[in-house]
């Protein structure tokens, strides 16, 4: 099959769009830079200014040299999005690199990719002494990535033409409103309302937990961003276990679940269509998997004799399970305990929950509840077809916003992506196993956590981890966030540049 080589004008267009992403990132760095100046954290301020300055320079140079009115096509969109996460995370790594809390460029890139993909795995060293502004910047990478770098650009620097291509290419299938820029702004509006309500709720509960004043507010803002964007970074090294508060955990659970809901579902709820909650395939799918896996987690924990009280089972078991299932990755105990003290069944349920992930069109990663639901429906459909008489027509429907007929192509697409995720989980685990330092269960746990953009860790992710494994996790986070299509398109594009015909 002949592959057509893209022309110089195609690359010009891609570079031009990437420049916009760089400009968007500079805004992300500007906010904590102001905080740094206010708090007198001068080294953090200069680190953030360097990052922002370089991003603006790239953005403006690309606009100067590469400005184009060529329309964005589907292939451009996918390549721009795939590159946006790679180039964007490299640029976002600059402040981390200068912070003095990362060992090298790879560590800084890992942290930035983890933040932007809302994974939450961290290699920041001595986090408990990291400056306030740099810590805020870590959490803001969740916000930018969770709402989508491209979405940030759409909303702030709305380009109009071709925006829909970028939106869909980023793995967001639900176009909530007819106009894509209005959709992006709706997403921001939802996030803003939750920001106000969620931060107030968190501040109140943190105050009750003994953490008031401006530090309480600072924790509340950071925690909100990490929970609603299903990120998983926290201001301290002990994650949510630091707060010793059941009420804080309850508020975070609500925010995590809200974050893992698709923005389309949020739109229905905002419009007062509450019946969508009971009919939506994703909601049902998520409820079933969370119930089954939650039961397994509780059973596993109870059987291992670790937790005997109801409070312990809920606060450790259910919180961790939902943190995994929503793709957040908040921890209520040291990750090592999951390996050393939780038996076998509970960690297995958590790995499954991480792998399945939240809803499509949300900030969560993993296979996604929609695909799980569609695959289950497709299996049921096939069984029905076998049982029906010859010549009978079996029609299966599902509800996602409105009633839809389950077509073969949709079912095939869902199962293909599901299999790709499973292959990615296994590939990452195999790379870890090559080093012979970890058990298969640990290797699989960490690999699934990275590829499903969760962030729970049993201790493999560490500044001293092997470099090849670190790069593997970076690629897993990237591919997992893009849900494969854009990443494959980029590879195809590179092949076309080198080998294609005009």
């Amino acid at each position, binding site marked *: 099959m002949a592959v057509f080589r893209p022309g110089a004008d195609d690359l010009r267009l891609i570079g031009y769009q990437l420049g916009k992403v760089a400009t968007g990132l500079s805004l992300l760095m500007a906010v904590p830079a102001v905080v740094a100046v206010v708090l007198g954290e001068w080294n953090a301020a200069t680190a953030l200014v360097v990052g922002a*300055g370089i991003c603006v320079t790239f953005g403006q140079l690309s606009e100067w040299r590469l400005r184009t009115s060529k329309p964005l096509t589907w292939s451009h969109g996918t390549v721009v999005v795939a590159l946006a996460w790679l*180039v964007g995370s490299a640029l976002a790594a600059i402040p981390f690199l200068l912070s003095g809390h990362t060992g090298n460029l790879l560590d800084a890139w890992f942290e930035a990719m983890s933040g932007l993909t809302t994974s939450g795995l961290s290699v920041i060293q001595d986090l408990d002494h990291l400056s306030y502004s740099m810590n805020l910047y870590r959490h803001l990478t969740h916000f930018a990535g969770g709402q989508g770098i491209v979405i940030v650009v759409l909303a702030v620097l709305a380009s109009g033409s071709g925006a829909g291509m970028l939106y869909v290419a980023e793995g967001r299938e639900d176009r909530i409103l007819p106009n894509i820029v209005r959709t992006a702004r709706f997403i921001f509006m939802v996030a803003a309302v939750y920001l106000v309500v969620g931060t107030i709720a968190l501040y109140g509960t943190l105050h009750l937990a003994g953490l008031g004043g401006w530090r309480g507010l600072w924790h509340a803002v950071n925690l909100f961003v990490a929970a609603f964007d299903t990120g998983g970074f926290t201001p301290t090294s002990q994650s949510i276990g630091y707060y010793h508060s059941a009420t804080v955990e309850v508020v975070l659970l609500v925010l995590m679940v809200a974050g893992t809901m698709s923005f389309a579902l949020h739109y229905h709820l905002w419009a007062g269509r509450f019946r969508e909650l009971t009919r939506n395939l994703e909601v049902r799918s998520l409820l079933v998997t969370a119930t089954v896996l939650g039961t397994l987690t509780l059973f596993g924990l109870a059987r291992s004799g670790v937790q005997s009280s109801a409070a312990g089972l809920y606060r450790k078991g259910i919180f961790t399970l939902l943190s995994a299932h929503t793709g957040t990755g908040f921890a209520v105990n040291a990750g090592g305990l999951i390996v050393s003290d939780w038996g076998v069944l509970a960690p297995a349920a958590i790995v499954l929950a991480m792998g399945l992930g939240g809803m499509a069109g949300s900030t969560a990663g993993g296979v996604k509840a929609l695909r799980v639901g569609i695959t289950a429906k497709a299996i049921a459909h096939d069984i029905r077809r076998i049982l029906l008489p010859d010549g009978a027509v079996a029609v299966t429907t599902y509800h996602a916003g409105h009633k839809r007929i389950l077509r073969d192509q949709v079912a095939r697409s869902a199962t293909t992506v599901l299999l790709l995720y499973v292959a990615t989980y296994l590939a990452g685990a195999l790379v870890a196993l090559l080093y012979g330092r970890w058990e298969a269960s640990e290797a699989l746990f960490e690999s699934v956590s990275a590829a499903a953009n969760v962030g729970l860790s049993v201790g493999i992710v560490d500044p001293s981890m092997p470099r090849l494994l670190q790069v593997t996790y970076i690629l897993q986070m990237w591919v997992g966030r893009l849900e494969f299509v854009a990443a494959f398109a980029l590879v195809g594009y590179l092949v076309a540049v080198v080998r294609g015909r005009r």
Partner: protein
Amino acid sequence: MIPLRRRLLRLGLLPVLLVAAVLSAVATVAELAPVRQTPSLDLALPPVVDLDPAGCQRDHDGTGLLDRPAPTSGHRITSELVVACPARLDGRGVTYVGEAVGDLLDREGGAWVLVNDDDYALEVGPLPGHRDRRGTNTGLAVWLPDPLAAQLTGLGRPGTWGDIVEVTGVLHRTDPADGGGLTLRAEQLTIRQHARHVDDSLHLPQLLLAAISVLAASSAWTIRRHTSRRRPAHPDTK
């Protein structure tokens, strides 16, 4: 005339090389951070308890080792050992040394505090006051009754090396008072070193880089603004 293929590769490679060059320059500046004298912790700490974490790792149920108490007398435990061997140390009286960091979370009758015993706490001091990076933080949640909590003079935070405390108490693998969390309930507390400020003086090469990047950004913005008024979008694309 340059062949199209080469032109494309050049067009694609140039930005990659540019980003790589910029990141390399930034990485170089990051390494130019002044190497300050490593703050020393001039304390004689109790020896670490002789317990092999590898022997605990496979004890998933935790029941087999309970009848073999860890020899904690006269020794201190570490958070790493506790996480690796929670069942073995459950309910034991232990000694633990570390830096009190973050916040004192006041509750009825006492307060929770995080006590880190990593190298930043007990050996080299907090980042970014030096370049001797020793990995991530590790620590234990410690419950301090009110009289003990009142003894603390400073907590580890950005710019502060918190109190180094020696805590004697009972370790709980699943503390019912903390919803099943792993905690150390303190009975005695001694401050081995009071909190101190950590020097983080202005990093001049970084300041210079910031000035250059601001200059570059404003120049690029000015040029782009100036030319976009005169020049339409690239003719290739019409």
